[in-house]
């Protein structure tokens, strides 16, 4: 690069900083939004499991023998139980009762358990959002299992002596098998990669990516469009500034701001959510490539839009599918295979994957080199594309 080029780029960069600094609304957006988003999203996804789902309990059995089960149910934090009198009807009208689940203990339930003819509990579930019903049913089943286990233990404890004597006559092998059957069989799990299964650790790259992409793509897309709208682009082009100097000068301020924002978000999540970061070098490289990719995308949008309004519209059209399909907030494996190919086109997908591989899996580069290559490809494609489009405009 020729001498003088650096100071020309610096002039453009300084001017761009002044624009951002003078536009107080954007400045406030830049300073307030990222930390607020981080805190809100962080807490929003913190629990990762459902609690206090509104539910109603109708106990038509009413006998003291059903009470231990009711007590156990009330301890289950998945449900926010409202105990209704047994006379309540229309239990299928969940919406009318303002609940997502209704559990009915039918009359004579405890007696039926004692009489070797168990009547099932009735459970009504809201299946509208497809996830909730299964989870609620599972949670209830677990409580019921616990109750059954308790009853079993109690039964064994209170067995008459002669039954014990009698059982001793059974062959040892059968007895052992019988005892084994009485205990629930277990799978001993060891959770790897995110041992505390904290959702914030999983979702963090999504949050960083979302905020950065929102800011970099939209703001970058607006910069050139704004110059074109105001007529200043012509004035820029008749100076001896080269195209690459204009583009570089425009990118630098946003790059610097984004890097500051990333560091801010990382410090905030480290301090507030106790997220730990491994291999800062690798993370920095991933963030940097992702940033360049986003800026390139913004530049590309900028090159095809005539006005700022168009630039913002294009940005939204680009960003919407990205947020839904990139696996930033939910695993990609939930998506059908065909859609996953589309996901692979988004920089955010590769950013999140690589970030998680480093920070959760503590993987060696061989595992995420593919994502780095994809991000680098994205940088090249967007920048070359924007360059070609800008050249066409120049004529």
């Amino acid at each position, binding site marked *: 690069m020729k001498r*003088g080029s650096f*100071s*020309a780029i*610096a*002039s*453009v960069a*300084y*001017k761009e900083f*002044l*624009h951002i600094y*003078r*536009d107080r609304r954007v400045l406030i957006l830049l300073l307030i939004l990222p930390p607020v988003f981080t805190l809100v999203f962080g807490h929003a996804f913190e629990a990762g499991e459902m609690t206090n789902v509104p539910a109603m309990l109708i106990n038509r059995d009413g006998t003291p023998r059903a009470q231990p089960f009711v007590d156990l149910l009330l301890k289950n934090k998945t449900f926010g139980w409202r105990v209704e009198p047994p006379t309540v009807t229309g239990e299928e009208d969940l919406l009318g009762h303002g609940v997502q689940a209704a559990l009915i203990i039918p009359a004579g339930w405890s007696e039926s358990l004692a009489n070797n003819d168990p009547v099932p509990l009735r459970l009504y579930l809201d299946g509208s959002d497809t996830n909730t019903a299964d989870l609620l049913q599972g949670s209830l089943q677990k409580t019921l299992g616990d109750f059954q286990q308790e009853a079993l233990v109690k039964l064994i404890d209170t067995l008459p002596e002669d039954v014990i004597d009698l059982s001793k006559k059974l062959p040892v092998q059968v007895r052992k098998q019988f005892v084994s059957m009485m205990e629930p069989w277990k799978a001993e799990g060891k959770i790897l990669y995110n041992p505390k299964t904290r959702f914030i650790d999983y979702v963090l790259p999504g949050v960083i990516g979302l905020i950065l992409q929102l800011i970099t793509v939209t703001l970058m897309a607006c910069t050139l469009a704004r110059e074109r709208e*105001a*007529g*200043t682009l*012509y*004035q*820029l*082009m*008749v*100076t*001896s*500034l*080269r195209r690459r100097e204009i583009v570089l000068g425009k990118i630098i301020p946003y790059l610097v701001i984004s890097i500051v924002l990333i560091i801010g978000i990382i410090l905030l999540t480290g301090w507030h959510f106790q997220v730990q970061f491994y291999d800062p070098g690798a993370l920095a490289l991933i963030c940097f490539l992702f940033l360049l990719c986003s800026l390139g995308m913004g530049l590309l949008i900028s090159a095809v839009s005539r006005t700022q309004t168009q630039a913002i519209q294009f940005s939204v059209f680009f960003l919407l599918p990205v947020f839904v399909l990139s696996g930033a907030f939910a695993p990609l494996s939930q998506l059908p295979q065909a859609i996953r190919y589309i996901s692979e086109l988004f920089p955010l997908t590769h950013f999140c994957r690589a970030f998680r591989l480093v920070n959760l899996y503590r993987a060696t580069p061989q595992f995420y080199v593919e994502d780095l290559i994809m991000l680098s490809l994205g940088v090249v494609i967007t920048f070359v594309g924007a360059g070609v489009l800008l050249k066409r405009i*120049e*004529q």
Partner: protein
Amino acid sequence: MTEPAIFLDRLGKSYGDIRAVEDLSLSIAPGTIFGFLGANGAGKTTTIRMLCGLVRPTSGRAAITGADVWRQRHIVRSNFGYVAQRFSLYRDLTVEENIRFFGGACRVPRSALPERIARLLELTDLKTKRHAPAGSLSGGMRQLLALACALVHDPPLLFLDEPTSGLDPVHRQQMWNLLYDLSHRGITIFVTTHYMDEAERCTEVGFIERGRLLAKAPPRALKASFHAKLLEIEVEPVMEALVRLREFPGILGVSLRSGSLRLYAADPEKLVTEWNQQWPFPELRWLGHRWVEPDMEDVFTAYSQGYDAVLRPAQS
């Protein structure tokens, strides 16, 4: 002979079927104030944009001090300043920041900038507005600032696209005084305008109409090319007379000036003789007539309307 500051050789630009500029040939000597005159849409802006290397010519070529304006545009660009028709500086930046930015963009050495900025603020009388945002300036001051930004790298050539359009007379005067100062220092000035009185202030004038150059000469020579006598008559009611006279045989055109009608005719003396014998419009009152010198507007009207009968080729 020295190399022309600007040289156009059959320069043309078409957008599809529309020919914005056609076969434009011109040679402008260094130090000239060249006034490029034409109606809106005549091709002035397209020509200036081609000369600035913003638009690619579709035919012919143009050179600034010998360098091709398109192929060598990156070299050419350090040799001129450009004031666009539309205010195109950064409104959110202050006066000084704007000049400083364009200085940096035009590669003025950092050490030379403070002195340069001070001089330009002095020249354009914007010292007191130094820290005001450009967007808060009045129309006249904005143009002065645009001029300051265009001059920041001390170019030997200046393009101004309708720099005085929309300015009040005081600022127009100030702008022209500045251009004289610059011309005096040897800067070549290429200025477009549709104010005919401004053409008189140029050392050379070119008329463009529908993309074609009609004439190019110093203002005096252009006026001299108007060979017929110019008749001005007093008549009442004037508006009706304007409409009726336009249709009168032997009259090429009529224009209204300060309440009198100017008649463009190949042989106005014959008309006066005839009218003295018999005034053909009983409903109009003829109050008198006089012979006047053509001004630039008359010349331009004659050229642009094709009143060839009143013109002879200008001697440039």
